[in-house]
């Protein structure tokens, strides 16, 4: 629970602000083109599908890879360098279970929750964006969003967030736990964990998209 709080709850503000701005910008950028083709009424559907399928999960995962992945890696690396992990082991505690497993479980559980939250906030941002130039009724907007979204949009995108969370936790813990001695090693471990986790998230996203396509959900 402590790790869920540290990893999840403390990221709510950052994820919320980013998600809101992305939703807002998405609609503001898309609107002129959509209006040109006379498809302005499709803006809620287009934005909701984009947000729920791709933007919400991916952006949440990338933010968390940067914030949480580097944090985990730096924390474990620092504990290793200052012999705190050894101290834990001589205290009869398995550091892998106590430090690594708890963090991986926390990221695997919290990234999906953060994604649902980011989707929601991003849709609010998109609604706000729609209202800057037009007068869009909230009831109408919500109806169009729920009409556009199907299980095939929500299911695969929600499922992949568990894999994103697992990857971020695993990479952060592995790099931190195996960081070489010295503060330079800790910095390098944090840096590498961000890069590897981000690339891992993008590769998983591509694989899930391919599988979803092969199953006929796209």
């Amino acid at each position, binding site marked *: 629970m402590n790790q869920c709080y540290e990893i999840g709850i403390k990221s709510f503000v950052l994820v919320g602000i980013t998600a809101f701005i992305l939703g807002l910008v998405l609609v503001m950028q898309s609107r002129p083109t959509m209006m040109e083709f006379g498809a302005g009424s499709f803006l809620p559907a287009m934005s909701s599908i984009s947000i729920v399928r791709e933007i919400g999960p991916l952006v949440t995962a990338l933010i968390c890879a940067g914030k949480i992945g580097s944090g985990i890696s730096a924390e474990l690396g620092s504990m290793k360098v200052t012999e705190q992990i050894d101290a*834990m082991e001589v205290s*009869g505690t398995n550091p892998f279970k106590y430090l690594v497993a708890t963090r991986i479980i926390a990221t695997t559980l919290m990234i999906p929750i953060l994604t649902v939250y980011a989707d929601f906030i991003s849709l609010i941002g998109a609604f706000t964006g729609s209202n800057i130039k037009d007068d869009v009724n909230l009831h109408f907007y919500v109806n169009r969003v729920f009409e556009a979204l199907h299980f095939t949009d929500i299911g695969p995108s929600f499922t992949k967030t568990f894999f994103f969370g697992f990857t971020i936790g695993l990479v952060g813990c592995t790099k931190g736990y195996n960081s070489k001695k010295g503060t330079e090693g800790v910095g390098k471990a944090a840096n590498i964990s961000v890069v590897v986790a981000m690339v891992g998230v993008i590769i998983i996203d591509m694989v899930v998209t391919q599988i979803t396509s092969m199953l006929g959900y796209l």
Partner: protein
Amino acid sequence: MATEINIAPVQEIADNQPVIEIEHLQKAFGSNVVLRDFSLTINKGENLVVMGRSGIGKTILIKCIIGLVKPDGGNLRVFGKDIFKLNHQDLDDMRTRIGFVFQSSALYDSMTVRQNLEFPLRRHRRKKISGTLDELVREALRNVGLENAIDLMPSELSGGMRKRIGIARSVILKPEIILYDEPTTGLDPITSEEITRLIMDLQQKYKTTSIIITHDIALARETANRIVFLSDGIVYKQGTYDELIHDEDMEIKHFFKR
């Protein structure tokens, strides 16, 4: 004016019952041979000081004893049991009988002093120690004279205080053996004397067997029943402080700066 420190006399060795038996221990990191053929027996109640040049393998030796580092060869028995043939549970139980004071103190910096001291107690509920968590923590802090630091974070402690808390955490499970890794390194002479006195007080109080890794000649003089000088991966010389201080070997003379 410096405070006068009265250090209790070195405890007489209770008997010749061996608690740690090391035979032909070997450990290398790549081409760097740290322990070549190290053999040693430590008896119950003994205060053994291990000295030698930096990087010679002293810390590796005590990390082998507690099972943090696996040797490449040789035998190592603690309380008559081969520590590397124990299963995980038995190893954890064995570790409750051994305290380890890290050179860096290794306090958990995300926890308060109280939580640092409670940690081993919470993880070893099977070990029978009388008293509540709070009583045991306060007793350990009283032993090191830092009862007022109970709710401080490690970052708020001075170097000497960190060492004391590290020692308090190591003795909280009432271990029979305590391994000290350079307990006075980086401390001023007065604080070093205080730590020396603390080590002696704890040994008197809990009748522990101690292995003390140090370069501090004063600490060795005050605490050692026997000093082992480690060089080239073997026990190069051993004896009492007086024997080594009068040894004619050039390396020993140079080390003790005579």
